[in-house]
């Protein structure tokens, strides 16, 4: 069931209950949890929070708290699973699902007992899903009606005869209906994609209960940035949603006073180089996927061109290597204008370097763009130091803390780690390209990270892994200059813990809409493999774990499928 009224049908039901929040491990769910928990804290509603990094952990969390908790809120997990079947014994429980993964499992949407409720802002919520099941419901009831009316009238013999014919007819129609249903369902579930971030729903909720705050808007912008950076939403939708958010900002800013240490958020055009405010310009341009691919900064020639370009823009090397904050003021002031000069586009094919983003300022501290905050939180969330020990919750809490406006040191630590992550990612892509390991296999590009690579630890979690895959794909396409490559999806394979390899598939570069067919594909392949060879534990279906012994077979099967 889709929740229609966020306050009446969701928030007010939480009062006096103990709520369990099960949250996935991504930035959107960090932001959503942050908003939601702030609201619950204000209202004194007790809750428990369980961050989970996979389907097994999710089930474990449910069974741990099943006895003592009656309301469950799933954030960015579970919508693709048949929740009623997955969580056994749902008696007297309420499950709210706030998940941006799509497709939605049909049984969750049409849950008869209304115990599973989906929170979403989409007006045209899954048209495919809606229309197909409405249709089949009608058909079914029609069939039933006919049967009933036939039973009632006419003499018994004629009735029996008719009944037989009718039954036959009914069976035939049911078969047709079933076929149609399966077809529609297949069409609907064929691709996995993402809806707008869940934080938008949480923000809407905060507004619906009159608790709007500029901080909540800021957290939502961080989540929206995640969707842009990891290509979860098409760019047009990003622009649309950010316009909506700037309306929220305008509203909140007018109602709040402006003392010196309050949070100010502005929507501005900004350079798209990652972390450049807290790094130096040189490294930032070199390692940002977008600019790196335009300059091909990994090759010797590309680096030469890069230096040449900086010279032409009048930015001295010394200044570019300096920390951005301590750059010569005259030089810093001209940076933004320099990058909009037409010579860049004509001579270096270097364009589109500005992006509309949100900038936050608190008092006299240096400004943070939504990209900076996002990467800092992501680096804290996927901190490789703690990952090995399995203590994922601390990472989640660190990431939550980095969002709050008082804990600057955590945020600064996150920025530092984000730089390490980006450097590792850049080095890895450079290594891929220099070793020529990106190869076309059948219908896709295949790349495998060597087992002993020092960078492996940075890419055990999903977000940076996907980021790496996207960077590799972009870089490979621009490196090879083979037109066909941009129409191919990419499959990346990286070593994971305890003998398993993590395999991620991403959409072709030329495809505008972020629709991914690997989710369904991996699922069908997993059935063909032996038990335990493939673990579909990640909540994103296009990422799977495959045991080292079966990896090659899996790739071969994939190749056979894709041809």
């Amino acid at each position: 069931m889709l929740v229609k009224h966020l306050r009446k049908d969701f928030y007010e039901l939480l009062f006096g209950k103990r709520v369990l929040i099960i949250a996935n491990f991504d930035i959107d769910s960090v932001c959503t949890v942050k908003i939601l928990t702030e609201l619950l804290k204000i209202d004194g509603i007790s809750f428990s929070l369980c961050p989970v990094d996979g389907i097994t952990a999710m089930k474990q969390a449910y069974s741990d708290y099943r006895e003592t908790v009656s309301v469950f809120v799933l954030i960015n997990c579970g919508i693709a699973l048949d929740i009623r079947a997955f969580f056994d014994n749902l008696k007297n429980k309420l499950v709210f699902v706030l998940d941006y993964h799509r497709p939605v499992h049909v049984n969750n949407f049409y849950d008869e007992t209304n115990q599973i409720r989906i929170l979403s802002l989409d007006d045209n919520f899954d048209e495919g899903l809606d229309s197909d099941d409405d249709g089949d419901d009608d058909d079914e009831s029609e069939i039933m009606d006919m049967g009933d009316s036939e039973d009632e009238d006419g003499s018994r013999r004629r009735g029996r005869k008719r009944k037989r014919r009718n039954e036959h007819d009914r069976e035939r129609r049911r078969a047709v209906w079933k076929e149609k249903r399966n077809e529609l369902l297949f069409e609907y579930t064929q691709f996995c994609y993402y809806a707008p971030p869940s934080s938008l729903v949480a923000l809407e909720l905060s507004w619906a209960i009159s608790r709007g705050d500029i901080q909540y808007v800021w957290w939502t912008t961080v989540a929206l940035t995640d969707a842009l950076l990891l290509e979860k939403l098409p760019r047009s939708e990003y622009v649309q949603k950010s316009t909506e958010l700037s309306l929220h900002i305008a509203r909140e800013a007018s109602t709040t006073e402006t003392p010196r240490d309050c949070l100010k958020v502005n929507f501005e055009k900004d350079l798209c180089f990652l972390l450049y405010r807290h790094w130096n310009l040189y490294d930032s341009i070199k390692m940002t996927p977008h600019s790196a691919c335009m300059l091909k900064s990994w090759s010797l020639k590309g680096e030469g061109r890069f230096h040449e370009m900086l010279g032409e823009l009048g930015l001295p090397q010394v200044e570019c290597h300096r920390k951005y904050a301590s750059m010569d003021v005259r030089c810093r002031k001209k940076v933004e204008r320099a990058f909009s000069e037409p010579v860049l586009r004509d001579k270096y094919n270097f364009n589109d370097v500005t992006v509309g983003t949100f900038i936050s300022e608190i008092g006299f501290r240096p400004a943070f763009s939504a990209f900076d905050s996002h990467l800092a939180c992501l680096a804290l969330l996927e901190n490789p130091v703690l990952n090995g020990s399995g203590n994922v919750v601390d990472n989640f809490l660190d990431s939550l803390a980095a969002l709050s406006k008082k804990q600057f040191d955590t945020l600064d630590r996150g920025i530092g780690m984000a730089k390490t992550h980006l450097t590792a990612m850049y080095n890895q892509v450079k290594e891929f390209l220099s070793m020529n390991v990106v190869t076309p296999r059948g219908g896709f590009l295949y790349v495998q990270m060597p087992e002993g690579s020092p960078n492996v630890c940075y890419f055990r979690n999903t977000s940076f892994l996907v980021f790496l895959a996207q960077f590799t794909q972009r870089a490979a396409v621009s490196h090879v200059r083979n037109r066909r490559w941009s129409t191919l999806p990419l499959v990346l394979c990286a070593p994971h813990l305890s003998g398993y390899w993590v395999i991620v598939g991403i959409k072709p570069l030329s495809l505008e809409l972020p629709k991914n067919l690997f989710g369904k594909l991996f699922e069908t392949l997993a059935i063909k493999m032996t038990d335990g060879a493939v673990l579909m534990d990640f909540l994103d279906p296009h990422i799977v774990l495959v045991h080292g012994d079966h990896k090659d077979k899996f790739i071969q099967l994939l190749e056979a499928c894709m041809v």
Partner: protein
Amino acid sequence: MFGERSFELVKDVERQMTGCVTGVPTYDENGVRQVLDEMQLLFDQNQKDYNRIGQKVNQNDVTENLDVTMNSSTSTGAQGEAAGVYLRHTALERNKDCLLAYMSTRLERIRDLRWIKGSVLPEADQNNMTEQELQYFTDYNKILANYMRDIGVDGDFDGLDLTEHMEPPKSHMVYFKVLKEYGEFEPEDGKIIVLRKNCVHHLPKYQCETLIRQGVIEILTE
């Protein structure tokens, strides 16, 4: 002089209150009785004078038309008496104020003791109180208990011990992380919580101090 004893009483109680911060001073039964006696005396005197003035005025009414000069001479006598009545009346009022101040200061202290020493007072304090004061204490106790029980009834927890905190807490909930596997924890209200390692909870402040001391949980600061 009128009112001296009562003033003494007030001064005494103030001295005692500053001298002993956590306790009820002895009830000065003797002093109070002396003041009351004085008041009774003043009242009787006033009553007498008042009656006399009343009689005189009545006589005046009758003889008013007969002799004007005589009238004036008697009225001065009545005026003198009226001033006496007025003086005594003021003294009476003052004694009353002082007695009330004495009582209310003591009651205030008794009310404070409920918050400091809890619902049962020590023997020493009880001996220093009068029968009525003890009754007051029991009534106050009852009202406070009822009020505390009513707080948050429609919420997650039933009642709140207001006397628990020296300063009003920012929130009646606590936000903490579990550091060790603990298993089931049963707080006062009987709603069991499972404390599993690495989970974060936001729950009413039960007896979490014990858990903190045992190193099971850690409070998360904002």
